[in-house]
């Protein structure tokens, strides 16, 4: 109970810090503009305007959500040390794991709110575009009850949830690096791993193709160590196409992300435990 109080206090403070940062609103503004650009791009396609809007919108939310996660996440702990507010925190009866977890959860909550707002915007313009391009002889209520509510909105929501799950991993990476590295280096490490995480399939294929046992071991090691974001992207694509997922796949993804996040935060805690604050 005491730990819950400490973690929630730090999470709330981190959330306040991030939502009161004007840079966040600038990033969200550009994300919304980029999403709207899907309307223009859609007109260039042949009857694929809604799909382009969906794809571009989801990509925009992932990219801008990732940018927020990396920029803010990599500064999370560093800023506390640099501004010496850490002296006030670690002289209170809190444990280092509570601090690390609170920081992570605060940013995760902020990204959740941002993704929710951008996701709602995306769903709204996708619905609007669907109604615009629907057969004029079909009433809008019929389109709403036959297409939007049973199919399109659930597909988008599932994709948005999977996208947020990916961002949770990025936040965990950023939090981990921020406990021991400068923001610039942390940004490079986190961004690098985020990109590499999307190439795990290629790494595995490379290892299988190679005849060198060293390359096989290295690629296999990297494949196991890197966050498997390629899998998440693949499933997200299937979700957008209306695919159904067995419950064991959903729980498997949940367990994987949870385990990976807990491991990263545990390493971050160990580093924070060993650190001295001069």
């Amino acid at each position, binding site marked *: 109970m005491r730990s819950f109080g400490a973690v929630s206090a730090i999470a709330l403070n981190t959330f306040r810090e991030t939502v009161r940062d004007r840079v966040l609103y600038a990033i969200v503004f550009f994300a919304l503009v980029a999403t709207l650009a899907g309307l223009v791009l859609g007109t260039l396609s042949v009857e694929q305007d809604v799909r382009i809007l969906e794809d571009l919108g989801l990509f925009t939310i992932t990219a801008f959500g990732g940018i927020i996660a990396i920029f803010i996440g990599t500064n999370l702990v560093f800023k506390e040390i640099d501004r010496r507010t850490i002296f006030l925190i670690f*002289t*209170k*009866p809190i444990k280092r794991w509570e601090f690390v977890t609170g920081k992570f959860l605060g940013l995760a909550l902020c990204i959740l709110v941002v993704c929710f707002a951008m996701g709602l915007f995306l769903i709204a313009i996708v619905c609007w575009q669907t109604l615009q391009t629907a057969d004029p002889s079909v009433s809008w209520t019929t389109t709403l009850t036959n297409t939007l509510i049973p199919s399109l909105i659930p597909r988008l929501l599932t994709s948005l949830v999977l996208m947020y799950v990916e961002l949770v991993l990025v936040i965990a990476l950023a939090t981990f690096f921020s406990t021991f590295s400068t923001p610039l280096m942390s940004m490079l490490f986190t961004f690098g791993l985020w990109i590499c995480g999307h190439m795990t399939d290629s790494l595995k294929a490379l290892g299988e193709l190679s005849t060198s046992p060293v390359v096989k071991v290295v690629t296999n090691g990297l494949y196991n160590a890197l966050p498997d974001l390629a899998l998440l992207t693949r499933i997200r694509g299937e979700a957008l196409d209306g695919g159904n997922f067995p419950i064991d796949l959903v729980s498997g993804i949940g367990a994987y992300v949870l385990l990976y996040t807990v491991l990263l935060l545990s390493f971050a805690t160990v580093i924070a435990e060993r650190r001295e604050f001069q």
Partner: protein
Amino acid sequence: MTETVIHVQGLVKDHLSNFLRKRFRALDGLNLTVRKGETYGLLGPNGAGKTTTQKLLLGLLKPTGGTVQVLGYQPGDTRALARIGFLPENPYFYAYLTAYEFLDFFGRLFNLCAAKRKERIAELLKLVSLTEARDRPVRKFSKGMMQRLGVAQALLNDPDLIFLDEPNTGLDPIGRRDIRNIMLALKEQGKTIFFNSHMLPDVRDICDRVGVLHRGKLVGEGEVEAICTSGNYQDLEDYFMDLINTAEEEYRKTGGITPYHIEREGVR
């Protein structure tokens, strides 16, 4: 017998330089005891090791050698920290929070319930004369207001032991007087106060006992009243300067070579 609140025995702290990893001894065999209800002032020139000592006592730094007990626990133990208040030197606060939010955040870290936090924050804002500014963002605070807010956060948990690192630095005479009055009120309440300062007149008014650090070594310690009435010194400043000058002379005589250098680096 009066209860010992801080007990330090043979405390050693080495810092490593960032690039060449060269070892520098910041504290060298410090022995110190602070009793319950006492106001102890740790004095010394810049770089003497005063802040390092406080950080070691609070668990922000780890000792290279020696033993430390604070309120009967190892430094950094959450059971001790729950009874400690701390104001760092030149504190920076979360600029995006209001004074109330700032204190509420730290009240949560002390696990105070909502009603208790509300009551305690109102009391403390009144004590440090910041009631009017409770909803103002901290970034709009003056240096003196910041320092007073820092004192308020250090008292949130009604601590038994209070650490203050240069609480008067950068304050105008009115700000200094306010902080001094708060410290005197705390002393009257029987709180144990351990503070570092350069402001010797304030130390004279507040402290029961002082220790003087020079290049990481405690070169003198005594009761303020005894020092000022012994007739050996004109005032506390005279005592301080005498100890520092003697220690510096001694240091120069040895060419800056201390027993540490002899033991570690084989310097003769």
